[in-house]
């Protein structure tokens, strides 16, 4: 007799998988921490995302939207499922700390992207990593920043 696993693993049985939606849209907040990050976030904002908010850190480690209107870190993090931090090499990602602290308090997942890293000097990358690592549960160093688009699509942003 055919085992249950043998029957259920078949292509024929795959047709009977429940097709109802299995998740609610996630809220993702993408925050540029420096100028390199801002260029990426401004490009990303032009995509047709459903549940994503795009912000930038100011020189005073506060937040603003990309039109320059002030935003409160606590409020932006409050209902996020994921906060994505984007920064370039050089150690100008100071805002990672207050944002990370807010995420940590709210138990919000954080992912950090270091952009333009492949052409940067290692000490510059180190400085940025030193700022991001304490607050990031996932760090990505990608050669091309269009990877962030793919990641957001994969995460159903």
């Amino acid at each position: 007799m055919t085992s249950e696993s043998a029957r259920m693993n078949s292509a024929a049985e795959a047709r009977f998988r429940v097709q109802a939606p299995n998740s609610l849209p996630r809220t993702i907040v993408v925050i540029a921490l420096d100028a390199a990050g801002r260029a990426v976030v401004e490009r990303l904002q032009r995509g047709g995302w459903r549940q994503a908010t795009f912000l930038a850190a100011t020189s005073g480690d506060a937040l603003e939207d990309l039109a320059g209107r002030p935003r409160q870190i606590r409020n932006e993090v409050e209902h996020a499922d994921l906060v994505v931090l984007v920064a370039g090499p050089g150690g100008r990602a100071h805002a990672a700390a207050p944002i990370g602290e807010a995420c940590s308090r709210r138990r919000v997942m954080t992912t950090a992207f270091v952009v333009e890293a492949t052409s940067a000097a290692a000490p510059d990358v180190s400085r940025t990593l030193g700022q991001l690592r304490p607050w990031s549960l996932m760090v990505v160093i990608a050669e091309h920043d269009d990877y962030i688009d793919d990641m957001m699509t994969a995460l159903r942003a």
Partner: protein
Amino acid sequence: MLRKVQNDLLTQTGPETPMGRMFRRYWVPALLSDELPENDCPPVRVKLLSERLIAFRDTNGRYGLMDEFCAHRGVSLWFGRNEDCGLRCSYHGWKYDVTGQCLDVPSEPEASGFANKIRLQSYPLVERGGVLWTYMGPPDAQPPAPEWEFITVPRPQTFASKRLQECNWLQAMEGGIDSSHVSWLHRGDLDSDPLFKGARGNQYNLSDARPVFEVVESPGGLYIGARRNAENGDYYWRITQWVMPSFTMIAPRGSHSVHGHFWIPVDDESCWAWSYDYHPVRDLTEAEIAAMRDGKGIHVRYVPGTFRPLANKDNDYLIDRAAQKMGRSFSGVEGIAMQDASLQESMGPVVDRTRENLVSTDNGIIMARHRLLRALAAFTDKGVTPPGVDPAHQKVRSAAIVLPRDVPFSDGAREALVARPAVAPASV
């Protein structure tokens, strides 16, 4: 999540598909050398990338891999006679050499030259490190022979096995770079498996079940780093290598051998999971080889006479619910390889990635798909050779290493991530 068109693109590897064409630009493992143990031994059926082939070793020790079926009436050459430098069809005696060239059509006058007009599709088959490798792409694009370290070290230092996995290659390969599952599915094996236990690094694993991941692009694919806290504020890193399209090397443990996989499509609904263990600077011990043959580590025990795992879907993977309940095994399936394979096969022959819900810790998988799709577009649109074809991309190592807190692991472990002859691996 992938769109259906992307999922189809990556999972379909037949000869006329984009991914199939790209896969054919690589040397891929086809058989274990032991499957053709002597000259004029019986031929072996091989199905790769949705093509049915026959492999044989002729009277002079030359290896051949060609269309399985006789050009005359489509009989399988598996029934053929391997004799006098050729494989002769048992039906009407047509005979082929290792290049697929027909040498003899007994029913035709010898002087007619008819045999010269018959040639089966064939592919080169070369022996490297106990594995027979084939290249199924255009001859003018054939790269140099593979240079993976496990096939370039002396034979006593390396061991390879293969097993049939009954699902698409991509979902199997993605399991190999899904570092976050290890703390769950395999949690019971670090302390008990003879090929893992006793390493100092295991204590870092066991004392910190929530590693933080970093994904960094490498020339041939990805470095996937999992970091845990070590002494004095340092980080303990376990760095896995993924080289396109389907090679992985898992971070080593202590003085144990280094291991990893290839996932090679048989067709779109099954693949060969190749598993290798080697040590760069010493012979494998008899006890290690015995453990590997006994299905320990990343290897399996087989249904006798086959490469099908003894625990398979037909016997519900011999799941032991009592062991699962008692915590002796998290999933109830024995052995690391079958713990993975049982779950990956349960996804169905080709998982529907439009319905998955990935999370941040899946960035290794997301990045691998991104790189495959990017390479596929460059290859298809501009003919760019994909990463991983260049032998320089193959001279890699995984590493387990303690580094200062702020150091990018790709820099701090730069030397450790490159294969260097007679240099011990970076391992904790």
